[in-house]
Structures are given as structure tokens and as C-alpha cells.
């Protein structure tokens, strides 16, 4: 029954008990509405046929309601409405009361990506991993404008507000991969602000978290250079890719040659670019750096001047790494990279 | 007053619009219209007062501090000035009721004078804030740390600025009606515009009576 109605109503899979509860209320309301709608429809059709005008000068009697009519008109809907409210409201209140043993994950929205951070330091971008069957509390905030963290499969949504934390919680009980959307309009790539919820069997999750934490400790031991946020031990190109992902370059630039909001990075290095002024420039290191620091100065022809400046948002080593990364893409054969197309594709687990 | 129409069978009063049956009805309509307009004006300010209330609650300390920095005595004098001007307007209306419209005009000009005093004091206060760098939003250079100070002054300038704008509008209205009264456009029978101008001025006064404790006193 549940499954049939769920499919009829096009609801996504139910990944938590909360989702199933909410859907129950949904079915109740939909079925009642359809029944009452049908009753009203049938009545109108009946009146329409029965009281069709038969002659021009036809007179009609005066009909006035009695007290009973009014009581029914008010009482019946009110009873239903309040009943639904009485079911729905506790479900909502429940969402504001995370169980005390819930695991905390910090969620940060920013144009146009989601960052998830776990206690002890590990963090990830656009992939939220959680253990199945254990409550998880999300502490949500935003770095810039309002976003909204939305997981249809959990029937869960919470706005991410700049300058303050909001919280919600869930207990996903079915391992799997679920879509995360940004549901509050936040500008250009609002519809590209997608992420993925990966619900793992609890033991797998523990292993994963432990590995993450170990990696982090080793990294911290390795090179505590002040001011340098990069993880050493990887090649500069790899670091550049991480930084570019973190800074959100891939929201606008692809690495597979496809045109996005900005030009692709593939084969960019040493390419001859035509600017909006008609001028031709060669994309060398200096040009790439300037493109990041003062994008409005030289705008590529056929593109809009929407790239934000990253001046002050990246440390010099990070800039250098990104430039290295872009240079590494000079040879088209080298880097396939993940597609950033709008269609939803599960992000492969690393 | 009521038998005015009957007393002038030659034709309706010049101020009577074609779609009203009597001057009295028309006056009623105009009064009701004015009251509704005043209600919208109050609600215009209500939005700002609500914002002020919320931030005062969120930044209690900073708002108290900033409010202490205001020259309460000037605000107090201004309150007194405005209340007095309301009184002169009311006296002007009373004079119009008795048909002494020259006197009405005189009292209205006196009220405009008081309005000018109010605006002058306000300008002195504004100048003071400018000198101290107590400006709204990003221009704030005052001594209160955090965002509270700049928020306070954003709201301070918005509220008092909007009020000052209303004072100016009120003075204009009083001026126009005052001149017309001097020229004898109104009489004991017909002086609805005088009444409406008075109502508007009372509103301007009333709003200040809210603004003063809200902003100057804590």
C-alpha cells in the first residue's frame, strides 16, 4: 500500500522513519482531498443536470441555510484540518529535538557548493557520508547568502543562514546514495549546487572516518608551515585540483573541454584567447593569475563578466598550485576529470 | 451648518463635488479618507519601529550606549516644540470653526515657524553626529564596537529622516491651507481642508511622540 501510493504520487525513496511518517500524513491528506473533491464534483454535476435552465422566465425559490448547514460547513473541514495539524506538528517538533547521542556534522553552504566537516577535522566537499541507523545532527550555516539543505529522500530541509547556525537531524536507515539539493535561490548556479548523501553501513563508516582522521594527523605532522593550508605529500597539480574544487572553480569551468559558465580549462594554457575587446592574448601564467585576481580586467569574448575575484581568498601557494593544475591540462589527452554537467550523477567514492 | 444647502438655493457650494449630495456628506468622506491615509502612514513607520525593536533587543548594550550619546535635551525641546505647534494648529482649527479664518492663517504660520525650529534643532543634531562620525552603515566611525552602533545609526537616520520628511510635508500643507485661509477660501460652514491639514499635523506630532522615547530614552 505504502509503496503503491508512493509511486503514484511520485515520491522519492524513503530513507528514514521520519520520511515514512511524513508520507503517511501525505497519503491521508491526499486521499481525503480526493474524496471530498469527488463529492463536491459529483454534487455540482448533479445540480448542473438537475437544475438546468428549462425556460426563459423560470423562477426559483429562495433557499436559506439553517444553523446546521453552517455548523457542518465549518465543523467538518475544521475537524480534518486540525487533525492533520495535530499529526504534522509533532513530526515537525521532533525534527527540532535531536537525540543526545547524535553525531554532529557541520554543514556549510556557499556559492555554490556544500562543505561537510566532522568532529576531529575531516571534511569533504559535496559528499556527505553518514552511518546507517545512527542519528546525525547537522549544524548548518552559510558563508555568503541563504542556501537550503534539502534531501528529498529524508523529507528534510533546513535553510543555511549566513551569520548563524540552524540545526536539524535525521536517522537514515537504508544504506545508499541520495541526492542533496540547494533549495533556496542563491544566484547564478543555484541549480548546480548539488551534493550527495552517502549512507554507509555503520562499520564501513567508522573505518572511513578513522582513515580520514589518520590521514589528517599524518599531514599535520608532516609540514606545519604556517599560513599554508595545503596538504603536503601530494603533487602541486593534485593540490591545485583540490584548491580549485574547494574554491568552486568547477562550478563554472569544466576540465573536459565542454563550455560552461566560463571557458574550459582543458587546453587553456598557451591558448590564444580572443577578449571581448577584440584583442588576442596568450594564456600564460601571468594571464591565468590575473584572471583569478581581477577577472573583469580581461573578459573572454562570448562570456559574461560574472567570475568573482579571488583576491584575498586564496593564499599565494594556492594560486601557484591552481596555475600548475591548469597548466597540467594543456595536453588534451591527459586529464579526463569528473563531468560537471547538470544531470545528476552519483559522485564516485574515493 | 446643516441648513446651509437650504439657505443657498441658487446652487450648491462651489466646493461640492458633483457626486456628493451635500457638503456634509463630502466632509465625512474626506475625513474618513484622511483617517485611512493616516493609518497607512502609521504603518509605514511601524515597519521601522519593529526593526528598531528587534535590534534593540538583539543589541541591548550597544543601543543603550548609542542612545545615551544622543542629546536628550534637544529631543525634549523638540518634543515640546512639536506639541506646542499641535496646540496652535488646534487653535487655528477652532478659529476656522468660528469663521475667523485670518486668525487661522496666523496660527498656521506660527505652527510652521515652530516646525522650522524643530527642523533647525534636528539639523544641529545631525551636524553633531556627522562631526562625530556617527553615520549609518559602513560610514559609521563612532566609538561603539561591533555592529550595534552602525545599526543604531542606520535606524536613527531612517526614522528621524522619514519623520523630518513628514514634518516638511506637513509644513507645506499648513502653508498652502494657511494662505488659502488668509484669502478667505474657508468659512464657518466649510473648512474641511483646514481640519484635514490639522489632522495631518497632529499625526506628525504623534509619531514624534513615539520616536522620542523609543530613541532618546531607554
Amino acid at each position, binding site marked *: 500500500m505504502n509503496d503503491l501510493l508512493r509511486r503514484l504520487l*511520485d515520491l522519492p525513496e524513503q530513507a528514514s522513519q521520519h520520511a515514512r511518517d*511524513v508520507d503517511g500524513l501525505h497519503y491521508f*491528506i491526499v486521499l481525503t482531498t480526493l474524496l*471530498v*473533491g469527488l463529492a*463536491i*464534483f459529483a454534487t455540482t454535476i448533479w*445540480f448542473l443536470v438537475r*437544475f438546468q*435552465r428549462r425556460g426563459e422566465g*423560470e*423562477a*426559483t*425559490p*429562495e*433557499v*436559506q*441555510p439553517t444553523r446546521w*448547514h453552517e455548523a457542518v*460547513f*465549518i465543523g467538518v473541514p*475544521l475537524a480534518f*484540518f486540525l487533525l492533520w*495539524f495535530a499529526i*504534522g*506538528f509533532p513530526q515537525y*517538533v521532533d525534527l527540532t529535538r535531536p537525540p543526545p547521542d547524535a553525531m554532529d556534522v557541520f554543514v556549510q553552504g556557499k556559492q555554490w557548493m556544500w562543505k561537510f566537516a566532522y568532529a576531529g577535522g575531516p571534511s569533504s566537499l559535496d559528499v556527505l557520508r553518514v552511518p546507517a541507523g545512527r542519528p546525525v545532527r547537522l549544524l548548518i550555516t552559510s558563508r555568503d*547568502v*541563504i542556501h*537550503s539543505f534539502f534531501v*528529498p529522500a529524508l523529507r528534510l530541509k533546513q*535553510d543555511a*543562514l549566513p*551569520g548563524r547556525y*540552524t540545526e536539524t537531524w535525521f536517522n537514515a536507515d537504508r544504506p545508499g546514495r541520495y541526492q542533496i*539539493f540547494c*533549495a*533556496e*535561490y542563491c*544566484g547564478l548556479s*543555484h541549480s548546480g549546487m548539488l551534493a550527495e548523501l552517502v549512507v554507509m553501513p555503520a562499520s564501513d563508516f567508522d573505518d572511513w572516518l578513522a582513515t580520514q582522521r589518520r590521514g589528517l594527523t599524518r599531514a599535520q605532522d608532516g609540514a606545519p608551515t604556517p599560513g599554508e593550508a595545503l596538504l603536503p605529500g601530494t603533487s602541486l597539480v593534485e593540490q591545485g585540483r583540490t584548491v580549485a574544487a574547494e574554491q568552486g572553480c568547477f562550478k563554472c569551468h569544466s576540465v573536459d573541454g565542454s563550455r560552461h559558465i566560463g571557458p574550459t580549462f582543458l587546453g587553456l594554457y598557451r591558448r590564444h584567447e580572443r577578449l571581448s575587446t577584440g584583442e588576442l592574448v596568450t594564456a600564460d601564467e601571468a594571464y591565468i593569475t590575473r584572471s583569478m585576481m581581477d577577472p573583469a580586467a580581461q573578459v573572454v569574448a562570448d562570456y559574461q563578466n560574472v567570475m568573482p575575484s579571488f583576491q584575498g581568498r586564496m593564499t599565494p601557494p594556492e594560486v601557484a598550485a591552481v596555475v600548475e593544475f591548469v597548466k597540467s591540462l594543456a595536453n588534451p589527452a591527459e586529464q579526463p576529470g569528473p563531468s560537471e554537467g*547538470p544531470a545528476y550523477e552519483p559522485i564516485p567514492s574515493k | 451648518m446643516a441648513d446651509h444647502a437650504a439657505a443657498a438655493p441658487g446652487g450648491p457650494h462651489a466646493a461640492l463635488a*458633483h*457626486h456628493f449630495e451635500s457638503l456634509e456628506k463630502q466632509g465625512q*468622506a474626506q475625513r*474618513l*479618507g484622511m483617517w485611512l491615509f493616516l493609518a*497607512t502612514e502609521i*504603518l*509605514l*513607520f*511601524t*515597519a521601522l519601529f519593529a526593526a528598531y525593536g*528587534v535590534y534593540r533587543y538583539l543589541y541591548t548594550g550597544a543601543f543603550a550606549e548609542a542612545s545615551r550619546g544622543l542629546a536628550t535635551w534637544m529631543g525634549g525641546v523638540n518634543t515640546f516644540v512639536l506639541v506646542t505647534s499641535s496646540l496652535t494648529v488646534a487653535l487655528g482649527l477652532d478659529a476656522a470653526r468660528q469663521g475667523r479664518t485670518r486668525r487661522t492663517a496666523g496660527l498656521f504660520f506660527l505652527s510652521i515657524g515652530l516646525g522650522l525650529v524643530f527642523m533647525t534643532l534636528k539639523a544641529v543634531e545631525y551636524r553633531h553626529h556627522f562631526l562625530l562620525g556617527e553615520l*549609518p*552603515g*559602513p560610514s559609521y566611525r563612532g566609538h561603539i564596537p561591533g*555592529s*550595534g552602533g552602525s*545599526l543604531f545609526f542606520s535606524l536613527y537616520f531612517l526614522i528621524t529622516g522619514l519623520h523630518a520628511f513628514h514634518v516638511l510635508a506637513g509644513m507645506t500643507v499648513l502653508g498652502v491651507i494657511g494662505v488659502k485661509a488668509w484669502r478667505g477660501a474657508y468659512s464657518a460652514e466649510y473648512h474641511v481642508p483646514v481640519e484635514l491639514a490639522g489632522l495631518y499635523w497632529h499625526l506628525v506630532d504623534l509619531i514624534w511622540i513615539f520616536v522620542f522615547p523609543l530613541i532618546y530614552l531607554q
Partner: protein
Amino acid sequence: MSPSPASSPPVYAVRNYLNTPATGLRSWLTTRDHKRIGVMFLVAVTVAFAVGGFFAMLIRVEHLTPGPTIMDAMTYNRVFTLHGVVMIFLFMIPAIPSGFGNFLLPIMVGAKDVAFPRLNLLSFYLYLLGAGIALWGMIHGGADTGWTFYTPYSTTTSSKVVPILLGAFVLGFSSILTGLNFIVTTHTLRAPGITWTKLPLFVWSIYATSVIQILATPVLGMTLLLVAIEHAFGWGIFDPARGGDPVLFQHFFWFYSHPAVYIMILPAMAVISEVVCAFSRKNIFGYKAVAYSSLGIAFVGFFTWGHHLFTSGQSPYDAGIFGALSMFVGIFTAIKVFNWVATMYKGSIDFKTPFIYFLGFLFFLFFGGMTGIALATVSLDIHWQDTYFVVAHFHFIMVGSTMMAFLAALHYWWPKMTGRMYSERWALVAAVFIILGFVFTFLPQFLLGNEGMPRRYFSYPERYWALNVASTAGASVLAIGFTIVLGYILVALRYGAVAGPNPWGSRGYEWLTPSPPPLENFDVLPAFERGPHQYHDLPAAPPTPAPGPAGEAAGASHG
């Protein structure tokens, strides 16, 4: 087609508001006649509707494929913002009150004009000014914030929000002046004989609308002004970076905009109450219930704005209050729905175009309203907030109900306004297109919302593709329907059969005067002995202008 009853003498009023005192453009632009102002408003809002509809079609075409179809993301974001702004501020809010309300309300209360004709004309020019400013902003880049202007995005975006905000601010004053005029007119200009309980239901509902317009619009005006100031100077009232509170903006905005949705639906209910009586040839079932429930909606509507903020982190306590109050506001609508249906009982139903739109209205309001109730149950809203479910909810009410009522009004009063009939056959064709097109456009959007597709999405995952195509197909049918309407009413203007004073045999007061009405509405003021919804004494008096001494004491019957 010979709609005029044989007995009514003046078939086409020779001297009417259209040719008296003059016919030139100048005489229209400087007119103080409420009927002409109403007609000018109707023309203006129809143009606005076509513009908004154009943007809507751009949205739909863009969604034909999951990725980019005909535009880029930036353009899309502007298009839906402009669609919302144009439809709400330029079309829906003024459409029925300023258009039909202006034309009809004074006639229905037996007045010669509204209380302040000059303010009325000013209101029209404010509308043009506001529309002009907004249009200027649209041409010079447009805004990309959504019609809700949520901060801090709206205060930091580089698009042209300031002119759009100022435009909306000015439009607000146009709406305030109209509301003020209507309230004063209803209070002070009712003809002798028209007591409060003999007021047409149209007037009751428009009156309730006006109350909301007067009380809510100033707050919105101030709020929009604050956003504009903040965008221009960065004063930080709503900007968290300067200590401001972005959620406070949402409270301010919805404090107006929730009541504003009733500004959009109450006039529609006003029309429907008239139409259902006229075409069922029956007294309204429960006059008082229908009349007072309008005031109930206007009142309770002020306390439910928080149901737009269920996901913004407000306390569950607040959410509960707002949710529960939303349920109560639904009851007043339910009362009306049931009373309208009951009005048909024992009637003599004439299945003409306005009645078809009445039926459309009834069902779409029912489903639109019930989905509103579902949203107000709080826990379900968490899933649906900012998805296409909400989009479908409000289009069901705004297009499905208000637009249907607008069309019902257009057809019902067309003969009164122009003195000519439209083609019933074409109207039927158009109605079929519009109703089917509507269902196909917005029903799939409920499912999309269930599936979780967020609104304001330029691109979407492929699994939403099929339903989006269905919706676009429906929208095309809808567009064809509207175009047909536009076509035949323009034809009717010139070639339509002469309607006569009362082609429908309606008892509404506006039908007591010739069509089109003369300059000051009534050649001879009727006595208004009968209630405007009273039919049981038919066919004793033929529906002609009843010459009677004005001011005669009226009978006590009503309903």
C-alpha cells in the same frame, strides 16, 4: 443570438460613458470617471499579463530539456524573477480591484463616482509610473532575486534590483489609493436603500480586499525601500555581515505578502459570488456567511505569514501558531466554497461561459487551497518548501482560481462595459483550451514537487524530464487559449451583437442601468428595493431600469 429581453426599451445606450463627454484620447487620459479609469486599468493589466505570460513561456521552453535550452542561467534567473514581479505587482493585484472594481463598485452602491475621483486617476498614473520604473529596470538588466527579494542575496547581487524595488514601491501606493477610495465610497456614497445587508457580495469582498491593501502595503513599501537603500548604500539593516538579520526581512516581506495573496483571491471570490447567483438565477445561499467570511479572511490572513518560514529556523512554538492559524483561514474559504455549491441547488442554471469559469474556479480553488492546507501542516512543508509543489500550489490558486475569475468577470461584464456580446461559441472553445491547458501545465508540477525538484532551477536532473515536458506542452495549450480569448473579445468590440441593458437577466444593481452605463451611472436612480441576489419574485418585474423616486425607503428583504 438575441440576448436582450424583448421588453427592455433602450437597446444600446446612445449617450454613455464611452462617448460622453468626449471620445478623444485626451478626454480619456484626463478623465475622472471611475468607469473609464477602470477600463484603462483593464487594458494596462492585460498588457502586463501578456508580458508576464511571455516570460512564463520562456521559463517553460527553457525547461524542455534538463540542461540549457534557449538561454543561460543568468538570463533564466532574471526571467523567472520578472515573471513573478510582473504577474503579481503589475497584473494580479490591480487586475480585479482596480479594473473591475473601479468600474463596478460605484455602480453597485448606486453612486455617481468613487469618493475621490482625482485620487483615482492619480492611482492609475502611479500604476503607470511604477510599471515604467520597473520596465526601465527590466530593460537595463532586470533583477535576478526572485519576486521575494530575499536578503542578503538581493542586497549584494549586481543586477538592477533598485528600479524594480522602487517600481514595486510606487505600485504599492497606487494600490493603497484605490483601496482607500473604495472604503470611503462604500461607507459614504451608498445610495438610499442600499443598506449593509443589501450590498452586493462583490462590494463586500472588494471592501475586505481594500482593508488589506491599506494595512499591509505600507509595510511592504518600507521593507522594499530598506532593501533598495541597503543595496545602494549598504546600511546593513538586513545584512548579517553588518549585524543585520536576514530572517527579519522575511518576516517583514511575508507580513505583507501573505495578506497580499488574499488581495489576489478575495476579488476573485467577489466575482464568483456574483456570477454564481446570476447564472443559477438564485439567491445566494447564506449571504451573511459569504459576506462576513471575506472579513474573516482579511483579518486572520494577517496572522499566518510565518508559514513561509518553516524551514528558516524559527522556533517550533512560532511554527505551531502560524500553522494552526493557517488552518483557520482555510475555514473561511471552505464556507464560501460550500455556499457557492449550495447556491446552485434548486436554481435555474444557464451554462454560459462565465459559469464554466465558475466551475473551473471552484475546483482549482479547492485543490489549490487544500494543498495550501497540506503545506500548513508544518511537517509536510519541510519536504515541499521551495519545490515545484509550492509553485503548483500557488498557480492553482492564482491562475486556476483568480485567473478563471478574471475571465468569468470579463465575460459576465463585457456586455455591461461595451454594450456588446462576445461570441459564445468561440468562448467555449477557449474555455476548453484554457482549462485543459491549465491542468496539464500545473498538475505535473505537483508531482515534480513530490519528487523533490526545487524551484528556481535553471537545469535539473534528468529524471524530472518527462514531467517537465508535459508541463511545457500544457502551457502551450494554455497560451493558445488566452490568445483565442484576446481575439474574439477584440472582434466583439466592433461586431458583437448589441447586448441591451441586462442580457443575463441578472438581478445585480449594475444591470439596472443601460449598457454601456451613462456618464453618472444612472439616468434615474432606482429605488433598490430588491436585494442584489434576490430571484424568487421572478418573473414579475422584467429586468429594466426601474424608474422610481430616489431615496424611497427600501424593503427589508435581502439576500
